[in-house]
């Protein structure tokens, strides 16, 4: 008798908790998805629907006009290609250099490596704005400690090329690279020492051990770092607007989209254009910019969510 009552109370508790949980998750999911849904709804609206009081979500007249405008003004396909190649380039180089540094810090201890790792932590802590101006001036007259002027007679201006990105990612100092080194270090520290010793006994050198044993095991952390690095580079406007002033990359094109559209519509007179319409096309532009990322995410997300558990982020 009492057990039956207890059982029913228990099951009642469980049911009510599931309902609360469901409400919370559905509600919060809606909060996250709301801006995307809204952008989709805005993007397929016609211009006159914007002012119609009866149109909230579903437009009265559908039109692809916003997409056409955004694509032509952002020079979308060209920009997309640029962004993609830039992100891919920095991602591959960053992942490689950070994996090397992470393994070095985790397993190959040498005199002063602890001190150097404190340097990694320092790069994480310092806001990028603090070092922005010297880096900018440095890249504008790039001398590589006086070597380049010796060879060619003058310094080179690296701004507006991909070189700043390449140089910083080869040397593991690009956007948030300290974090990636940290992730890799935590992961490699978790690999049992016996694995390495067995490899050594079988005659593998340090490099061979790293390439043939450690890296294949590190796939989860590689996936995590690659995804983070790719996405953050894709969306980054901080370094891209500093290093690339005229090259066409999505993040710079997006911020200047309304202005360019106004020029296109009103022959250069930005004050004449309808700000709501500009904003509408910009929303479409944002949608176009994140679309490739969402497609990418749909493919890797399962792997990503599973792998993060084994990355050793948690130390």
């Amino acid at each position, binding site marked *: 008798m009492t057990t039956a009552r207890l059982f029913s109370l228990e099951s009642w508790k469980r049911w009510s908790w599931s309902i609360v*949980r*469901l409400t919370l998750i559905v509600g*919060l999911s809606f*909060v*996250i998805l709301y*801006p*995307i849904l*809204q952008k989709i709804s*805005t993007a397929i609206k016609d211009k006159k629907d914007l002012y119609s009081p009866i149109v*909230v979500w579903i437009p009265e007249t559908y039109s692809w006009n916003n997409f056409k405008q955004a694509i032509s003004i952002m020079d979308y396909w060209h920009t997309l290609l640029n962004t993609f190649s830039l992100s891919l380039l920095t991602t591959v180089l960053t992942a490689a250099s950070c994996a*090397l*540094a992470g393994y*070095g*810090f985790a*397993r*190959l*201890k040498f*005199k002063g490596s602890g001190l*150097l790792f404190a*340097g990694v932590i*320092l*790069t*994480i*802590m310092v*806001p990028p*704005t*603090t*070092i922005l*101006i*010297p*880096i*900018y*001036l440095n890249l504008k007259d790039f001398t590589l400690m006086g070597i380049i002027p010796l060879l060619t007679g003058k310094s080179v201006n690296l701004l507006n090329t991909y070189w700043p990105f390449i140089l*910083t990612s080869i*040397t593991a*100092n690009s956007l948030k690279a300290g974090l990636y*080194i940290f992730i890799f270090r935590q992961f490699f520290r978790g690999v049992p020492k016996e694995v390495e010793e067995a490899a050594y006994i079988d005659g593998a050198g*340090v490099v061979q051990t790293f390439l043939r044993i450690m890296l294949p095991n590190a796939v989860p952390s590689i996936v995590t770092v690659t995804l*983070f690095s790719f*996405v953050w580079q894709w*969306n*980054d*406007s901080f370094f891209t607007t500093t290093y690339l002033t005229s090259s066409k990359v999505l*993040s710079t094109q*997006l911020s200047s989209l309304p202005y360019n559209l106004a020029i296109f519509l009103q022959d250069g007179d930005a004050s004449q254009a309808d700000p*709501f319409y500009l*904003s*509408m096309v910009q*929303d479409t532009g*944002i949608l176009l910019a*994140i679309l490739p*990322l*969402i497609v990418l*995410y749909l493919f890797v*997300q399962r792997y990503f*969510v599973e792998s*993060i*558990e084994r990355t050793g982020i*948690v*130390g």
Partner: protein
Amino acid sequence: MRIGWRTRSYAQQKAMWGFLFVLPWLLGFIFFFLLPFLTSFRYSLSTIEANSKGIIVTYAGFANYVNALTVHTSFNRILTESIVNMVVNVPLIIIFSLFLAVLLNQKFLGRSIARSIFFLPVILSSGVIMTLESSSLVQAVNDQAAGSGGLMNSFGAYELARLMMRSGVNETIVLYLTEAVGRIYEIVSQSGVQILIFLAGIQSISPQLYEASKMEGATGYEAFWKITFPMVSPLILVNLVYTIIDSFARNNMTDLIRETGFTTFNFGLSSAMAWIYFASILLILLLSVYIVSKRVFYQE
């Protein structure tokens, strides 16, 4: 005498390779971090004139700092604003993401879909997209429309606030909570990575602990406070640091520093601002790490 490759001991080889592995980073660290970092400090103490021949740096003492703190019209306001904003948001983000991580760890229908939705902000809310979203006019109009239609919504929050006030909860806490509800999107969109980290931490707790506690008759609530919370507490520290660092990317301070540097070309003032900002961040980081790390539970 030359020491041959083979004659080095394994430990020596490892040390040498370790240095080689770290070398690329070290070069980058020196050229793209340490030197700029020190130069920036030097700039902050000087006036800088740029002309066609290059830049002339003349030492000016603390003039730039004094200028930023006492003369500049908006620096103080923006600095306090961005710091207060950070201090307010950080605890909310951490509590919220821990809660969601626990929630997403439970078994229920559609868990994988829910997980992928909750990690979506990792992708969507970074960099330029976040900045543009906050300035979208269409969004603002729609929000207003939703606000007028959702009178019940605001009324509900108001009622809740009144209820809590009546029951003797401190007014600041009530305001804090209701504001948090109002900024739910901001908080959700900033906690993607943190949820990920907490979730990974929760999944590394061995199930035996929960089993044993269940045998002893612990409720889920007790299991959370006695097992989950202590076990993930080191990650609270990690998330704390991450949240603070993450806030660099999206605040007005960064914009102001950039603007001073690149629009008005006052490099000295801009560097001084950046250093004041860095110092205050560092202070907050050290303080919070000190407070939290005392309470963190380590298994060893």
